[in-house]
């Protein structure tokens, strides 16, 4: 607590940006190296989920149970204590039907098998929709903050949000979790959440900021004070949200735990970026703009305000 009070959030931006930079570099690297594991939502294909499997067969046995050479081109994973998930390429292109594969699995595993299959056309549609949703969210958020605050706040919030998206996606690439529609939903949720966090800090800066006049040193001190005033709230809030998210990660089955994983990473990144990225960027942007407007004007405003 005492330590938090003494941190220079804005002045030491080089340190905070460097920390993020290292993470971003690793994340972007992981994404660039093809670490993404797109699910059938985006590529098309079928997913078979068996629950209540009898006599714990090995993944190789499950693979062998698939007709033809399908086993070699499918992803077989065990899920929970007695479940299996099998993801195959688009079956109609392979000359099989969902029913054939399902029956084969049901016989081998002696369990109920659920199927989801998605056509490649639909996969493409979902992909487009997902990208549109994220782009639309970012655009509307810039507009919203510009209206409620001012454009410089929107700029700073945007940098923080893009930071969070890259970190979340990068972690997905790093651990090789399947990226699907749920991931996109989680990313959008993270956007909303991280924005909320940022807004709470910005709200305090807005409240503390003098009506007129800009002075770099004073503004940065004010931003630092504002962050100090709300930093505990940011941490408590994150804990409040992360508690149920961790519960989802531990107790939820695959869909819920996927969702929780993205939220866990995203909310972590979001809390960091609200404090250590958004506010410093805001201050740097303000300073850069003041410098561009011209020192004469800046000085005039300064003398007018004091």
């Amino acid at each position: 607590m005492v330590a938090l009070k003494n941190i220079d959030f804005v002045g030491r931006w080089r340190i905070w940006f460097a920390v993020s930079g290292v993470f971003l570099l690793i994340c972007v690297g992981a994404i660039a190296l093809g670490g993404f594991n797109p699910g059938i939502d985006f590529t098309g294909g079928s997913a078979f989920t068996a629950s209540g499997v009898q006599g714990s067969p090995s993944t190789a046995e499950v693979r062998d149970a698939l007709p033809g050479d399908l086993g070699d081109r499918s992803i077989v994973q065990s899920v929970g204590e007695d479940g299996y998930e099998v993801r195959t390429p688009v079956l109609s292109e392979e000359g099989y039907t969902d029913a054939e594969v399902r029956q084969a699995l049901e016989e081998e595993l002696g369990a109920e098998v659920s199927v989801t299959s998605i056509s490649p056309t639909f996969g493409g549609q979902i992909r487009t929709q997902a990208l549109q949703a994220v782009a639309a969210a970012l655009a509307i958020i810039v507009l919203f903050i510009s209206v409620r605050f001012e454009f410089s706040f929107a700029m700073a919030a945007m940098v923080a949000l893009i930071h969070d998206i890259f970190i979340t996606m990068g972690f997905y690439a790093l651990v090789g979790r399947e990226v699907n529609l749920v991931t996109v939903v989680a990313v959008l949720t993270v956007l909303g959440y991280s924005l909320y966090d940022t807004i709470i800090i910005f709200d305090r800066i807005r409240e503390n900021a003098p009506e007129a006049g800009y002075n770099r040193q004073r503004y940065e001190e004010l931003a630092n004070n504002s962050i100090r005033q709300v930093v505990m709230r940011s941490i408590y809030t994150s804990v409040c949200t992360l508690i149920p998210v961790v519960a989802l990660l531990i107790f939820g089955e695959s869909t819920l735990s996927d969702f929780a994983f993205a939220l866990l990473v995203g909310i972590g990144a979001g809390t960091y970026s609200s404090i250590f990225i958004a506010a410093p960027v805001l201050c740097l942007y303000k300073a850069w703009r003041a410098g561009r407007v011209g020192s004469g004007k800046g000085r005039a405003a300064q003398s007018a305000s004091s």
Partner: protein
Amino acid sequence: MTNRRNNLIILGLVVVLIGVAAYLIFVRQPVAEATRLGLDLEGGVSANLQGYKTNGEEVTRDEMDVAAGVIRQRVDSLGVTEPEIQIQGDDQVVVNIPGITDADRAVEVIGRTAQLGFYEVLATAGGQPVPEDEIEDTKESLQDELEGDPTFEEGETRILFEESPAPDGSGTIVQGYVVPDEPELTGEALDSAVQSQDQAGRREVQMELTSEGGEGFGDLSQQIVDNALANGTPGGGRLAVVLDEDVVSAPVVDEPIYGGQVVIQNQGSPGGLPQEEAEELEVVLQTGALPVNMEILSVSSIGPTLGADSLRSGLLAALVGFGLVLVFLVIIYRVLGLIADLALIIYAFLLWGLIVAIPITMTLPGIAGIVLSIGVAADANVVIFERIKEEVRRGKTPRTAVGIGYQKGFTAIVDGNLATLITAFILFALASGSVRGFAVLLVVGVILSMFTAVVVTRALLGLISGRGFHLSAPMMGVSKKSLEEGRPARAGKAGTEARR
């Protein structure tokens, strides 16, 4: 005093709302049936179909409405309870059928265009039984053969195939037919279709034609007889009954048929048509054709066990998360935390009531939405309470601090929640099906949480402090040490204010 009255009114309203929610959840029906469960929790088949036209024209909303109506009738005829059919966007339809697991069959029935057509056969080829794996090759060679036939003209005629099991079980008989591009008669001529059996007990489907259809059929058969005579093959003309792109039968017509009954049968097998096929034909013919073709975008069939597992784990996660948040709030905010906990419990109960009242179908993403909204609801209190603690540290009396906390915290909460609402609306607008469930619950949860976390906690706090209950700083989780530390900060703040 007016404040106190306002608080009482608000709390009275909360009590009424709780009463209504309790009625909806527990009294109106058994509690186990109160919440409508989605397919991913209950088990069932969900299919997403996209309408398209073979000629590349745009599918209109009207056509999708008609299609959805036809699909509804077909699903109803499967004898399932509470199917859900929704048009999504301009050209997609989502069909949810609880309680069944045979996705392939359901989709076959739902998505079949069932465009019926009666054609005069201009030329035929094939007729030899072939093994299963040679059907496609046979079709290709028949296609080549028929394209060389003098009756075939690109754009005027087309080639259709019939597959039927050989009577001696030695494979599949594949026949190709050259027919005019457009049918003489379409499904509009059909009045009804019903399963029946012929004298030998073979299963067949009888189609009854309308009176107009019967006449048209008579004319068509007359034309076939006449043309056969003119071609020098009297009595050898054939009529093709075509469903979608498949010839279901092509009987020889040796005399004009008036009367309006057409039979689809399979004389090659002792049982006639396979039972499933007969049922399917009956359903799709009886309900009529879809105005557009349907492409299957996605199908999922969730078994009841998997659904129940998901529900159990989701609920467990939600409850554990909820419980831990309650504990956490008390640890950090003591008495204030207790009040927040009470508000959270009210929130959870009212949310359940809303889910039942609207009603919102509970899905897996929906549970995720609820879990997240618990965090959001708790957060509103964290924002306000942190502000209150801050004011107390600056030396304000607890009572004043509470007032300032709510006043100043409120803008931040509104702005923050608006941000969440924006993303939820975008999710709702752009996404489909299950994702919408998440978005809807997030929106409902956020709005409700603003009520319980801001309005209700304020009324509760106002009421207990009005009752002479003295809230001291330690009761709010503010330590003596931080009280002393806070004093200089107050001076700093005052300085800022003076400069303004």
